[in-house]
């Protein structure tokens, strides 16, 4: 969903984080020894397994909880998670795919104009906060859809939310506010 303006804004989803459970105990050592593309982190108590086809990195804990990061869409995340479960099944564990949930979606969007951050922050207090000493972007948090938008002065924004719908609506919400505080390009 793009904003209803003359130009369509490209919202590019860069990262989708999802979790699921296998409902069985996993032996991390077995996975580490018999799997390809695995990194065993004994100090953290987890195994990192990287898949190629949906490009995904999964953190696998021995309790059976798995976090998948790196997918580019929600469906991709699900496919990747399923594939991972299948791999674990083939390794000999009695895996059941349960409680799949997309936890976080990160999207990037670029405005065709620059933004005056100080103006933007002044107009949208206290929802927006800008602390140049800490971070170069202004942070705008929309509570009811639980989305956080980081606005950079170049006009690019990053949006994080619990799912893709929220992210899209967040961008729609914030666009008019950004439009007000824009800075036209000189050259």
């Amino acid at each position, binding site marked *: 969903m793009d904003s209803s303006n003359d130009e369509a804004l490209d919202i590019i989803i860069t990262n989708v984080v999802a979790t699921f459970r296998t409902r069985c105990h996993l032996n991390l050592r077995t996975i580490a020894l018999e799997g*390809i593309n695995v990194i065993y982190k004994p100090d953290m108590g987890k195994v990192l397994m990287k898949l190629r086809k949906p490009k995904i990195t999964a953190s696998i804990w021995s309790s059976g909880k798995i976090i998948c990061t790196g997918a580019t869409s929600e469906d991709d995340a699900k*496919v990747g998670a399923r594939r991972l479960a*299948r791999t674990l099944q*083939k390794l000999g564990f009695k895996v059941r795919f349960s409680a799949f949930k997309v936890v976080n979606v990160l999207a990037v969007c670029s405005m065709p104009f620059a933004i005056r*951050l100080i103006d933007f922050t*002044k107009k949208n207090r206290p929802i927006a906060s800008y602390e140049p*000493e800490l971070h170069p972007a202004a942070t705008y948090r929309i509570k009811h859809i639980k989305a956080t938008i980081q606005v950079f*002065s170049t006009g690019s924004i990053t949006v994080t939310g619990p799912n893709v719908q929220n992210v899209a609506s967040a961008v729609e919400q914030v666009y008019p506010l950004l439009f007000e505080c824009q800075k036209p390009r*000189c050259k």
Partner: protein
Amino acid sequence: MSSRVCRTCGGADIDVDQARGSAVCTGCGSVLEDNIIVSEVQFVEGSGGVSSAVGQFVSAEGPVKAPLLGSGFHTSVGKESRAQTLQGGKRHIQQLGSQLQLNQHCLDTAFNFFKMVVSKHLTRGRKMEHVIAACLYLVCRTEGTPHMLLDLSDLLQVNIYILGKTFLLLARELCINAPAIDPCLYIPRFAHMLDFGGKTHEVSMTALRLVQRMKRDWMHTGRRPSGLCGAALLVAARMHKFRRTVKDVISVVKVCQTTLRKRLTEFEDTPTSQLTIDEFMRVDLEQECDPPSFTAAQHKVKMQQLEQELVRKLDEVEGEISCYKDEIETELEKSRPKLRGIYAAYSKEIDPEDAEVLSSTSEPEEPEVGDAELQAATQHLTQNFLCQVIQEEEGRDKKTEAGPEKESLGPLRQVAPLDVILGKLTTTTCLDLNKSPDEEQSESGVLELDDIDDQEIEKYILNEQEVQVKTELWMKQNEEYLKEQEEKEERIKKEKEQGTYKEKKKKKKRMTKGEQVEALTAGEAIEKMLEKKKISSKINYDVLRDLNRGGEGGSGPDPPNTLTHKPLTRRRRNKTSEANDLAANASIIGKRFRRLISTTTRKKRKTSSSQVENSVTMTTQTTTTDTTAPPPEPEPISAPTLAPPTVEEEEEEEVEDECVSALQLVGDYGCEAEEEEVF
């Protein structure tokens, strides 16, 4: 003031005396209020003509200090704790604030913020110093003082981002809108620190103008204000003919050298930098610039265009290079090791593909080799050749940067090899694993979803051979960790057998200074202290302990005669004599202690030859006492002790020193064992 009704008579006529601060009913004369807080200052003449102001001090904490005990018991307990928190907070704020040189008004405001924070229960789960620092920073921002969060984090030695998190949270919860940081605020402060003498004000003004110009040129959004200030001050100083190096400025401004240089280059790119000093002071250019990141993006686009041009040019040059390529190929054919077995098949397969790839991309391509090492070697060789070519090109095109060219060649060069690798050889990238061609066999199995390719999943799982190899590798890699685990398990087993196994050993023991040493005698106490504290690294504690145990044969009471004679002599002998005296005294205190001293004196005797004769007379008494001590015991001890004689002597001296000091004190105070003073 208080026009109330009198309690006793009900009359409404109340006389309020401002000067005395009292309210009196005119009807019945009862005093309704006393000590009203007035804003008048009255002076009273005291004895001797000294005039003093009339009034009482009222505590800032108010009535909190006198809670109602008894009737409001529960609430008072809660209030006490809250009062303590507030008191503690106030103290901390005063401390930190004075270090930051904040005035009292700021500190009071900070305390008010703190009270609000406490009432909203935001201190829970947060370190007190973080909360206080955040309150102070909040005040700094609202008042506009030139204090940075960096200063606070410097004082507290806490990560600035942690403080920032707390600060942001508090600002959000208290709904306090802190105004944005203006770099202009920091200029006077930094200028002061940079020591410009009389001209500080002028330099500050120039720097201010520069900063304002930077703002207009969009250099300040998203950047740390201190970095901008640093750059502005550096330029301003140079303009006024002060020599301030980049290092001076960064030590004051607390940014990195790279940052400062970057700001300067960015400023250089703006048209304002082209003005002369006079022009700059007089004229303000109308034109505004784009933010530097914009220009960087444009720069990138330009680079890409140039790269494309370069590719075209390379095509032209390709002919020249292809002959080089042929030569390389022939050379490598000769030097390439013969591949055996399965690899031979692979290498043959690769070559025709190679030819196709080459023709398609028309790229100067190194010949495809099965071995990764040779590949790398050829890549390197061609790289060198290409570098030379590029340099020639540079001369022709007058291109300044060879970087992007190389970059452009880099990815283009790698395209073909990757293709080949991914096409033929399968996904394994491990070095030593056997690439078995059996991976194509797929299990039929139960397919959950149509889109899951079981074949591919099979590739993810290694077969038995591979598992073995990987197990070996993994074991080698993680040897240390595995060893640790084994040791840990053994340790736990042992302790379980011994019955001293403790479940959680993760918490580190804190060396509490206030640990009470329980000992029956002074001697025991000192011994325990020595064991615990390990004061000197040169003392061989094992030997010391053995000595202690060795002297268990019991020694008779030392004659007190030795007391009087010896204190006069000064030298090592003195020590031994003193030791003897003190040893004598020790008999009054405790057996063990004495034994310690006596055995050490004997040790000393053995190691220092010269004193032997001298001390013979003196120590005869001790020897008599020590004859009962088993002679064989010290001999084995002396053997190791003799080995490093000098070190041991020092050790003993040190031990002796302490014992001596203890005993001295003991000697001074008679029978009392002053344990603490030993330490």
